[in-house]
Structures are given as structure tokens and as C-alpha cells.
């Protein structure tokens, strides 16, 4: 018993972190060794580094910065590349990771500092596809139409997207040569096209998906569905929106 306690006390976690001081500086790596705590996640390691910012060689360094909020995988803020895969740092448990644990910022987005990235492009994409239900007005519009339970069930799945950006990071077609919005935006357009009130703006979303950086930029590599922490059926959403867009495009052309 006491032998294992000593064992646990001496156990450490080895991290290799890719850092960057500001948006324009060169990235570099630093290694850290932090004491192991039972059941700890990657965030706990980063907090330990923050408390005691000493690298593996005992040199004092600037503490590593990262983003976080909920710590229960519902906010999406702590998405980073952990051992080569984009995921949430809060649900990345040290016991389930191979060491050394390698952390990198999700470089498909501009890096602000260390593991903090600027995900504005995702919010721009959501604006572009009008991923909301417009209900603002000067008088009470009354209750909206009801949604069938069977549709609500799958739409709920899509509503779990928290704009973390893992799908954008893993997509080969989101790169400097394209302006592809990414899987999540297509899935959100599907969600709001299904919503009984959202449906009223269906065409606008489809037009946006046919616009610059739209659905046609998808090459079906399907990494998005593999990395999505919420298990959202992104490739089904993309194909379903391909169908809506196809009908819309043909219908619009024949009506003109």
C-alpha cells in the first residue's frame, strides 16, 4: 500500500508543447514534467505549469496560455491538437494518452499565443449561412409551429455543436488555397433549415452554401466526422445539404 503511494507520488507526466509568443513570431517547443495526480486531464497539467512555470530542464519560462471555460466538454473553447488529433483538452485524460503528451495549437486558425487560437472565421461562417432563427421584431409573433418529435431527435444531435473547430482543423480542404467554411457550418445550416421557423429562410441558407467557400468545396475526406467530440453525423449533414442544394439549384434554374 505505502509502496504504491510512493509510486504514485513519484509518477510524473511528460508534455511537449508547441508554443508561440505572439501571432507573428516563430513557434518553438518546450518540454515540461509535472507531477501526476490521479484522474488528471490535460487542463490539469496546464494548470500545474501555470502554477509552476519551470521547463523540463529547470529553467523558468513564461507560463503556457490556453483557453477554457466549462471543463465538461460543452463549450468547445479548449480544443487543441493533442497527440496529433484535434480534441478538447478537458476530456483528454492523461491515463488514456500516450506519453510524452504532445500539445499543439489548431493551426488552421490564426494562433494568438501558445495554444490560444482565433476562431472568428467560424463565427463568420455561421453568419454567412444564417445559422439562427430570426424572430426579432416590434411585436409578439406568437408561438411558432411545432416540430415533429422524430425530427427533433436528430436535430438535437446537430444542435450539440459547440463551434470547437476540430472538424475545421482536421479537414484537408480547409487550407490557404480555398475559402471552405467547414463541416460544422453546413451541419448548422441543416439544423436551422429543419427548424419549423428557421425553414422560412431556407433558400437564403442554400444560396449561401452555393456561394464562395460553400458546400462544393467539400471533397468527402470525412475526417470531420471522425474527430467531432460530440459525435455529430457531419457527413450525413453534408450529403443531406448536398441534396437540398441540388434540388434548390435545379428548381431555381427551371423556374427562371
Amino acid at each position, binding site marked *: 500500500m505505502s509502496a504504491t503511494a510512493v509510486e504514485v507520488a513519484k509518477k510524473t507526466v511528460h508534455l511537449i508543447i508547441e508554443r508561440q509568443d505572439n501571432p507573428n513570431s516563430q513557434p518553438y517547443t518546450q518540454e515540461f514534467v509535472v507531477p501526476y495526480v490521479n484522474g488528471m486531464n490535460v487542463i490539469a497539467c496546464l494548470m500545474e505549469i501555470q502554477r509552476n512555470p519551470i521547463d523540463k530542464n529547470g529553467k523558468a519560462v513564461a507560463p503556457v496560455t490556453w483557453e477554457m471555460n466549462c471543463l465538461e466538454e460543452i463549450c468547445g473553447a479548449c480544443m487543441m491538437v493533442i497527440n496529433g488529433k484535434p480534441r478538447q483538452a478537458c476530456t483528454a485524460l492523461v491515463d488514456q494518452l500516450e506519453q510524452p503528451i504532445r500539445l499543439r495549437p489548431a493551426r488552421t486558425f490564426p494562433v494568438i499565443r501558445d495554444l490560444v487560437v482565433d476562431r472568428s472565421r467560424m463565427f463568420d461562417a455561421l453568419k454567412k449561412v444564417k445559422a439562427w432563427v430570426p424572430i426579432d421584431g416590434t411585436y409578439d409573433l406568437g408561438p411558432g409551429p411545432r416540430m415533429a418529435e422524430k425530427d427533433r431527435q436528430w436535430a438535437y444531435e446537430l444542435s450539440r455543436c459547440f463551434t470547437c473547430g476540430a472538424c475545421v482543423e482536421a479537414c484537408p480542404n*480547409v487550407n490557404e488555397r480555398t475559402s471552405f467554411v467547414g463541416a460544422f457550418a453546413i451541419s448548422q445550416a441543416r439544423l436551422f433549415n429543419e427548424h419549423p421557423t428557421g425553414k422560412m429562410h431556407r433558400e437564403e441558407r442554400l444560396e449561401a452554401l452555393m456561394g464562395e467557400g460553400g458546400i462544393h468545396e467539400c*471533397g468527402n475526406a470525412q*475526417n470531420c466526422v471522425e474527430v467531432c467530440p460530440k459525435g455529430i453525423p457531419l457527413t450525413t449533414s453534408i450529403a443531406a445539404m448536398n441534396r437540398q442544394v441540388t434540388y434548390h439549384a435545379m428548381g431555381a434554374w427551371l423556374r427562371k
Partner: protein
Amino acid sequence: MAQAQQSSDFLLRRLHTLAGVIPVGLFLLEHLFTNAMATTPNGAVSYNNAVDTIQHIPLLHFIEFFFIFLPLIYHGVYGLYVAFTSGYNAGQYSWTRNVLFVIQRITGIITFVFIIYHLWTTRFSGKAPTFEMVHQLVSNPAYFWFMIVGVVAATFHFSNGLWSFCVHWGITVGARAQRVTAYVTMIVFIALAGIGVDALIAFTHAA
């Protein structure tokens, strides 16, 4: 102006996937079928008869230009652009679909080069398209292996492209439908590659 530019991208992409299947893919099937005539018992005669029938199709040059060359050039050249704008990260994410995504682009480029050389040495060689002409060509081992690589690449690109076509046009939507289609298109690939290679081997035997 910007709007016009935007919707043209969408249209060009959709035309690209359509062209790959409707005229170009159908032509590939027809071509493989004609070649397979060489594998029949009286191969040389059957093949020459089949070619002769094609040569007597009315408006042949018109059909060849508008239903084969134009869509083929469009699909090929625009496809090179698509392959160039794609990113490649199968090293980091080696899931099957991502690997197939890379192979689709590689086989597309191989097929592009292959078709140019293939046309150069056959359709535009000035020689009459006969069994004997093909036999002469494939008697050169280097040419024979070049043809094998080209046929395998082209049939893979077509079969896997059918899978993407079904997704791009919103035909296969659910995960199961996409998975089943993936198996079916791989069987199509094996069958078509087999037919193509079999015909090439038949051409190596003198008439």
C-alpha cells in the same frame, strides 16, 4: 459581380463531378467493353468488327468531340485544379476515407497523363485502329506495364468517383448508405480493372 463569381464555382464543381460520370464514365465502360472483344475466342476478328461498327456510327466526329473530348478535357483540367487546391493530411489522419481521398487525386493525375500518352500513340498516331496496331504497341513490355498502371488508375478513379458522385449529388445521405456504396464501388473497381487487364493480356497474343 462577386455573386456571379460565387455561384459559378458551385456550378463548375457540379459539372465536374457530372462530366466524370455521364459522358466520361460511360465512355470508359464502352471502351473497356470494346477492348474485351479481344478476349473472345476469335479475338482479333471480333475486336476489329467492333471497332469497325464504331467507325460507322453516324456523326462520329461530332459525337467524339462533344461527348468525349470536351467533357474529358474539362474533367481533366478542372480536376487538376481541384487536386491542387485540396490539402493532404492522410499522414496525420489515416482513416480509410481520407486515404481514398488522396488516392482519388493521385489516380486522377496518373489517368490524366496516361490518357494523353494513350491518345497520342493510338487515336492521334495516324495508324488504323486495329488489333494488329494494339498488339504491336503492347508487345513492348514498358508500354504494356504503362497501360496496366493506366487502366488500374482509371478504373479506380472512376469507381471511387462514383461513390463521391453519389455524395456530391445528395443521393447517398446516411452513413450506412455511404458505407454500402463504398463496398459496391470497390467491387466495381475490381471487376473493371480485371476486365481491362484481361483485355491488355489478350492483345499481347498475336492474332
